[in-house]
């Protein structure tokens, strides 16, 4: 329990800088079960922030997980789960293979992966779509497969980019309940960018709100805690 209350993820002077773009994240400490809601207008740089945390875009400053600095690590060594806005599922694999790919990359035994993947897919009502090609899945099904793909290997932190976009209310609820249960069980902090799900704000333990300092197009973008 004590471990749960300790700082697990730490951001210090985290800064994303391009020639005409500057985005700062205040120093921030997250505990294992924190849910961070990120709110800002369109085009502010929310996705860029998540990409920089994952190591897909360059950033300055410090990022530590469990006391270990990972800001210099390449993407594949960061252990950060990322659910992309466009799902980005692999079209040469079916739904099950997509879910299992993270375990396969870590050399997990095939039978064990299969068992784990089918169990999780059943929980999200995907049991009838296990062997379906990606092209045949609906938007909601793709979203759920993308979520499972990022979660199944239990990352150290989970980044969600508009995970509930375009989903009906029932599916949203089902997905958000599942995520909350899973991350609570495994102690994974979540950074979630979402416009549409009010629950995202309701159950957030930390809320970050975007603020523009200076002129409209070239000013510094920063996030402050609400």
């Amino acid at each position: 329990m004590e471990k749960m209350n300790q700082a697990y993820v730490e951001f210090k002077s985290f800064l994303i800088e391009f020639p005409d773009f500057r985005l700062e994240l205040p120093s921030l400490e997250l505990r294992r079960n924190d849910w961070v809601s990120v709110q800002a207008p369109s085009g502010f740089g929310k996705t860029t922030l998540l990409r920089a945390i994952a190591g897909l875009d360059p950033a300055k400053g410090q990022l530590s997980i469990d006391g270990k600095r990972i800001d210099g690590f390449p993407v594949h060594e960061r252990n950060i789960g990322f659910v992309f806005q466009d799902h980005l599922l692999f079209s040469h694999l079916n739904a099950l293979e997509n879910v299992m790919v993270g375990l396969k990359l870590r050399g997990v035994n095939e039978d064990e992966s299969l068992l784990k993947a089918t169990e999780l897919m059943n929980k999200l009502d995907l049991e009838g779509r296990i062997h379906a090609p990606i092209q045949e899945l609906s938007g909601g099904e793709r979203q759920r497969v993308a979520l499972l793909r990022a979660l199944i290997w239990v990352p150290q932190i989970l980044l969600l980019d508009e995970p509930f976009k375009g989903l009906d209310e029932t599916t949203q609820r089902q997905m958000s309940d599942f995520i909350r249960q899973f991350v609570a069980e495994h102690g994974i902090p979540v950074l979630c960018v979402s416009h549409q799900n009010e629950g995202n704000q309701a159950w957030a333990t930390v809320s970050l709100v975007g603020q523009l300092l200076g002129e409209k197009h070239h000013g510094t973008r920063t996030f402050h805690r609400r």
Partner: protein
Amino acid sequence: MIPGKSRVPRWLSILIQCGLVFFIFLYPFLTLMNKLSSSFWSELFSSSTLYIVKQTLWMTGVSLLLVTVVALPLAVWLSRHRTPFSKYIQSGFQVMWILPNFVFAFLVVGVLKLFGVVELYSLRTVLVAWFLVALPFVTIGFTLALDDLDPREQEAMETLGATPRQRFWFYDFPKLKRAFASTLFHQLWFFLTSFSLVVLLGGGPPHETIEVSIYTSLKMDEVNNERAFAFVVWQILILCLVRLALNWNESKALPVGQEWRAAPSPKEKRWMGKLLLALLLLLVSTFFLVQDDGDLLSSLVTSLALSLLVSVFSIFFSIFLYRLRARLLAELAAWTSPLILSWLWWRAYAIGNFTIPSLLLCVAVQTVLFAPWVSRMIFPLLDRTRYSELQAAQSLGASPFRAWRLVEWPRLRADFRFIFAWIFGLSLAEVSSVILFSKGDFEPLAVWVQNQFSRYHLGDALKGTILMIIYSLFVLIFLGKSEGVKHGKNESSLRRI
């Protein structure tokens, strides 16, 4: 004619396809078969024929393996490292690619002899030469396929923990195995129909290939139709079997221009540099032409006209085949060598008694010969036609053609330009079909150069060769390069076949 969904009725399409198959393949083959004696069957399975088939397969297999082992890691490196050095390598490979075959053969001979790597007329020489010829093509084919992958999906794979090596084996390779196979099939076709390199470096037995055997069986003084046709059958059989084994149901070609590719960046248009290079090339060619007595100029003009017409007609013919849904027909000409097809057509239809102007006949012959290669590039492009956007444009009041110009043309323009440039280069270097169908009333540059070589006028031959390279480069510089910008972190420029 707007490329896109075919409105040709199914019955009419089948009728036209059957007609084309009959006139292009069946009739010429049947005409020749009719004249064959019974010794054809004994030639087909004779020990000398089987030995040459085995020898060809062995040489082809070894060369393909060698070139794949080197080209694949090289292509991965070129695709992942967008440094000036890697761009120079790619540009260098593109230049080697447009060199006429026999010119390349002479270069290979020179280089190999210079370094004392090989002795002429040995098996090793042919293998090394094949490897050197194939490396640029296969590497560029592989690189272009790798460049076509969606970098956002590659990033998604990395966030799941894939190392660069794992990313290749779990994502890049499974996505591209058909494209890789397609490139290798193209190369296999080249090896199986390779003639000038083998003759120049291997000289014939015991390193004789099927194509060389066909040629030696058809030499004017000792024509042996039965033996030639036996080899033709083996050549078609091997290519058909390989083709079927590849199970080409989906992606038939090297992928060209994926949808995620962004519009060209204006910053990448280096017009001034291109213009200066073009002026330099023109200056060099003018220097050669001024020194000449007029033969060279007339050959050059004929060649340019022929290549221009062939490039345009090849593209239109491929679009026509696409609208007919004639995928199989589009590939048929690639199941044997251009030399054989030209010869069969000449035997069946022409034999010197044709009334159509021979220049037009050459254009028609080359258009059909190059159709498979053009189709392999154009069909996947047209498969990705964005019909919903076309309909959206039409709903705003655009005519079908205007809608296509508005929606599809900006996406296709760069690739069509490159295809044009590539076929232009191929046609510029094409010799056998011109020799058969020209009736001697015109002499394109490639034939002129070959004649100068055979008369040992090496200075003139070199001049002509340089001119051919200059004009191929000229077209490639202005039309061939299409630059695009990838999304995501890679931000690398693309080049497609």
